[in-house]
């Protein structure tokens, strides 16, 4: 074989792309041919110099933090994919706000994650052109609609004589578990009510009571094996009022 033909193989040899047998043959030739040996030397030098020169840039800590937050926060979200990109900045703010909350330890982490998911669901739903799948102000229409779609049933309150009105409902998912998502309105404020089975590890053991998630007010409690969340930008008194109505109905 002429040296020209060997030369063609030298790159493959150094890049580890030859079979063991081929590599052995090339190795044997290199021990006998000073010309090809020099060519290999030159290639090794170029390879090595690019390797060294190429490791040039290191990211700074703020970017690392941003990416880590994005990945850890967003990988837990299950909202419609088209909203994910748009909601990244909002989510980062939410996560940052949660970090300041007074709750401690694991419960804080758990609450944080759940509330950020619920806030996502709330915002994404309201921003959607079709926020609800069953559009009705009548609880006797909305409640049966969920039958067969979620693995539990629940009661909705009578709203006559209150400022609340029912807008409609849809099925929501919290960590792959289906639940009910109801939307109520009071004085132009939308409030989301989420109901999930309490047995789901995600919501189990959350302490009940009021919460604040970024600009949202929220309430959560358990009742008859179901975990309720009420979240929205309405005043905390309204959130509490709706929560009371739901508790009485349940």
């Amino acid at each position: 074989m002429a040296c020209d033909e060997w030369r063609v193989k030298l790159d493959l040899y150094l890049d580890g792309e030859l079979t063991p047998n081929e590599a052995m043959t090339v190795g044997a030739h290199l021990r006998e041919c000073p010309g090809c040996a020099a060519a290999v030397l030159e290639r090794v030098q170029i390879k090595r110099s690019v390797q060294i020169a190429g490791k040039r840039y290191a990211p700074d800590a703020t970017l690392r933090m941003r990416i880590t937050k994005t990945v850890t926060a967003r990988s837990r979200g299950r909202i419609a994919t088209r909203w994910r990109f748009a909601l990244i900045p909002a989510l980062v703010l939410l996560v940052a706000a949660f970090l300041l909350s007074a709750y401690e330890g694991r419960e804080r982490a758990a609450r944080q994650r759940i509330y950020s998911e619920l806030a996502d669901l709330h915002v994404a739903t309201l921003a959607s052109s079709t926020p609800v799948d069953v559009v009705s102000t009548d609880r006797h229409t909305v409640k049966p609609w969920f039958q067969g779609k979620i693995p539990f049933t629940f009661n909705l309150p009578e709203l006559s004589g209150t400022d609340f009105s029912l807008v409609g409902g849809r099925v929501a998912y919290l960590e792959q578990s289906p639940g009910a998502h109801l939307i109520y309105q009071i004085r132009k404020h939308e409030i989301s009510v989420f109901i999930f089975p309490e047995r789901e590890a995600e919501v189990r053991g959350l302490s009940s009571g009021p919460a604040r998630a970024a600009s949202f007010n929220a309430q959560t409690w358990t009742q008859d094996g179901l975990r309720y969340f009420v979240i929205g930008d309405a005043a905390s008194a309204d959130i509490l009022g709706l929560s009371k109505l739901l508790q009485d109905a349940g």
Partner: protein
Amino acid sequence: MRVFEERPRPSALSFEDLALPLFDQLYNFARWLTQDKAEAEDLVQETYVKALRGFSSFQPGTNFRAWMYRILRNSFLSSRTGLKTTVLLDEEENEGLPVETATPESLLIERANREMVQRALEGLAVPFREILLLCEVEEMSYQEIGETLAIPVGTVMSRLFRARQALRVALRERIEGERRGV
């Protein structure tokens, strides 16, 4: 109150586990492509967001690293800077390897210092620069490079060969320029 037990979520955990260790390398690669700090940061951020969004469509068992690099590179190519970089390579399919014409230049390359190599790399066309980085810095196999750049292995070989030739020429020019300058 019951203690909250965190349930492992394989899909979510594995994205973090797979993607976060690539962060430093992806940033280095992004910076080489964009040649700009802010743009590189945006590019990396965009890559992670897109990868996260598309992770459900990622086929387990296929090459995750090549998948991430491909997302980064495609994002770059559709960015403002990326669109400006003309990808005009009159290669290359079924062309086989070009015949080498240059003589060994060991002595020449020996004189090249790190900064000189960096400048020479900066000056290369993006397709040459990126394939050299993937091969030498990321130490990807031809197969992996092919997956990343969406080209056949034969094209990887010929483009790599041309990229190395281009780098040699650029280094020679720099070294000779320096010699004349002295």
